[in-house]
């Protein structure tokens, strides 16, 4: 496979894309009642005045991501960057026409400088650094060893990202169990725990939590307030897995079992130090207060700039210090991060009107979403927050889903209240992180793990076959967890 190795974005618009986006912008104009936009940089959009058509590009890009790989796989693989650019332009052009260049530029800079660029830099750093660590050696896939690997991965996921932990451990886990006839259940529980649930305790664990961190949620807030939820689910799942694997193991022909464990060794250990650096850089930006500077009405703090520069430095150091052979053995490729960068470039633009409308609360065109998660007495319905955020995160990307419900709950304007009251934000965070495990497309590492297992000739369940597992096992556990912790 010969993928583009650069990290540049393909944001050139063809005339056809511009014409189509202009058509959509015209329609948006026609359906926007009493458009009122701030004309000065720094004031942003008045969401209460926006019609529902402004949300079409956001829905469009999310649906394109969900459906195009299924319906037009070759087109999608070759052109997803252009599709992302198309939907981004479908928001930018109307903004440009209706608001004027100044406010459109402000909105783009605001979302890119404060959210998109730091988000991509962190993902790039975690992807590069964790992709340089390799676990060598051979274990024997007994129930005890498998539970230990799952537990280790669940712990690591919060600190090196679900993708990093999953990529580090899935190949050793498959190697350890290669002699066994039954191992699909092991891969599925690995997806549940390591690729999703384990990533709930820090902003490094799962992208939506980092977006929360960028919005002002303290670094250790999730550690403190999602710990019991995460432990409750993890312990139950590990116990179910152990019993399941014991029964499966008893039916295996143990004469095929490798005779002894080969000593484990870490290759690319320098990346573990760099990973500590990544954690330290993010922590630093959460605690240090070094002042800020203004760019086009946008306030950028020095600690965030230092964090991002440091993360780029760690990325560069990891690339230079990790032997290429080690990267090849890990099957490291830049393409996934390029794909993430291109698609999120569109998502972060298209989500701007949606967030503005949600900020308007019940007065906005998306007031029905606010109503959905509000009790009759006007208080937040935390169970609704959990299940709706979770259901959407199971099939759409959980990062924008988190942002939508974070803003539905009031967003940065009521952050102190959200942090003190705890349950609403915990419900949104739990829904976004935990329920990504419900389908192969709920979180990127789910599908990565599936692909690696299938490449190793493991017959993984189909899309709906996997959902029978998740509905049968995860849903009851989530139900009990939500009733205990999120009411």
């Amino acid at each position: 496979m010969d993928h583009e190795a650069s990290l540049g974005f393909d944001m050139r618009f063809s005339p056809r894309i511009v014409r189509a986006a202009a058509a959509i912008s015209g329609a948006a104009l026609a359906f926007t009642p009493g458009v009122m936009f701030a004309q000065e940089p720094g004031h942003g959009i008045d969401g209460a005045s926006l019609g529902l058509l402004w949300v079409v590009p956001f829905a469009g890009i999310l649906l394109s991501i969900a459906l195009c790989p299924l319906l037009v796989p070759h087109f999608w693989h070759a052109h997803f960057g252009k599709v992302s650019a198309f939907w981004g332009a479908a928001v930018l052009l109307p903004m440009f026409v209706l608001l004027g260049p100044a406010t459109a530029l402000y909105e783009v800079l605001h979302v890119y400088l404060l959210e998109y660029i730091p988000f991509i830099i962190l993902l790039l750093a975690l992807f590069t650094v964790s992709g340089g660590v390799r676990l060598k050696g051979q274990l024997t896939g007994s129930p005890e060893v498998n539970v230990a690997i799952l537990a280790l991965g669940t712990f690591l996921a919060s600190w090196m990202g679900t993708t990093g932990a999953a990529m580090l451990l899935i190949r050793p886990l498959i190697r350890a169990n290669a002699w066994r006839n039954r191992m699909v259940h092991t891969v599925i529980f690995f997806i549940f725990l390591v690729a999703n649930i384990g990533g709930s305790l820090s902003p490094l664990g799962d992208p939506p939590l980092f977006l929360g961190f960028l919005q002002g949620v303290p670094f250790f807030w999730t550690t403190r307030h999602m710990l019991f939820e995460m432990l409750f689910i993890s312990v139950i799942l590990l116990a179910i897995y152990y019993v399941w694997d014991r029964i499966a193991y008893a039916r295996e022909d143990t004469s095929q079992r490798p005779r002894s464990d080969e000593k484990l060794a870490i290759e690319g250990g320098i990346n573990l130090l760099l990973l500590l650096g990544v954690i330290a850089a993010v922590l630093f930006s959460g605690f240090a207060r070094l002042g800020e500077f203004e760019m086009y009405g946008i306030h950028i703090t020095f600690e965030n700039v230092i964090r991002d520069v440091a993360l780029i430095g760690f990325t560069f150091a990891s690339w230079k210090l990790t032997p290429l052979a080690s990267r090849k053995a890990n099957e490291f490729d830049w393409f996934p991060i390029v794909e993430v960068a291109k698609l999120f470039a569109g998502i972060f633009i298209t989500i701007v009107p949606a967030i503005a409308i949600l900020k308007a609360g019940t007065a906005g065109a998306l007031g029905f979403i606010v109503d959905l998660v509000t009790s009759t007495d006007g208080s937040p319905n935390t169970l609704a927050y959990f299940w709706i955020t979770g259901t959407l995160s199971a099939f759409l990307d959980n990062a924008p889903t988190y942002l939508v419900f974070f803003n539905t709950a009031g967003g940065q304007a009521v952050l102190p209240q959200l942090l003190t009251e705890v349950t609403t934000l915990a419900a949104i965070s739990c829904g976004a992180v935990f329920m990504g495990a419900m389908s192969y497309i709920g979180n990127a590492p789910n599908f990565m793990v599936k692909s690696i297992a299938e490449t190793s000739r493991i017959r993984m369940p189909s899309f709906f076959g996997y959902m029978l597992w998740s509905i049968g096992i995860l849903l009851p556990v989530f139900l009990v967890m939500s009733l205990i912790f999120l009411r």
Partner: protein
Amino acid sequence: MVKSVLIGTNGSQWSQSAVKLGLSLARQLGVRVTLLGIVDVQGLAHGEPLPIGASAFKAERDARLLADARQRIEAALESAAAQAAEAAVEFTTRFVEGSPEEELGKEVQRHDLLIIGKRAVPRSDHDPAPSKTLTATLHHSSRPLIVAGDEIPDSPSVLVAYDGSRPAARTLAGYVASGIYANNGITVMGVGNDVPEITGHVQRAVDFLESHGRSPKMRIVPVGRGIADALVTAARDESAGLLVMGAHGQPRLKEALFGSVTRAILSRVPVPLFVDH
């Protein structure tokens, strides 16, 4: 009379049975065979929903699975060609990529008879998923089809399962026209509890076979524990090397929920099954 035979092979245990049976029949009939290997591109690299950041993993997986499949099919064709040469059967090999159902459907139009293996049932998580090719081919093949079993007796007799239906009558006519095992013993069997009615059906098949110079035996058995059981017992008693039977189409939902007699027979009867849908 059969003039040319198409044998599908994918390297599985059952398709090796198909090659063995096909070459044995081709040698007896003195006809040429085409050995067809198909890489199921759609099955291995189909579109599926993807999360953001995972498309490279899918592309990598698809490329590897396709490369493995190409290697496996090429090896299967080489092995089948070597067996054909050893059996002194005139043969050609064809390697194609596409949907097995479609490619078999196209290629079989050049031949009189198609021979393929049974559907392999996975016994471990490492075995490939069961192929849908056999079910589709049973329903849509434009030529008579033999599904190879796991046994090829030396001097086989032929067992005809006959219920008087249109598929059964067409299959019997197709079998007679094929000339396969034309000089071997043949038994026409009816399964049912209404003996006079079943006997009437079977007698028509016996008359047809006698008009083609065959001397069939007649066998009527009660349903008992099911049609598949009755056929397994009869095949064993008669030392049958070929079971001739009409395949009954039924709605896919019904077949998915309750299975079909044909599928039950395919999974349980060890002898090759001749079907003309």
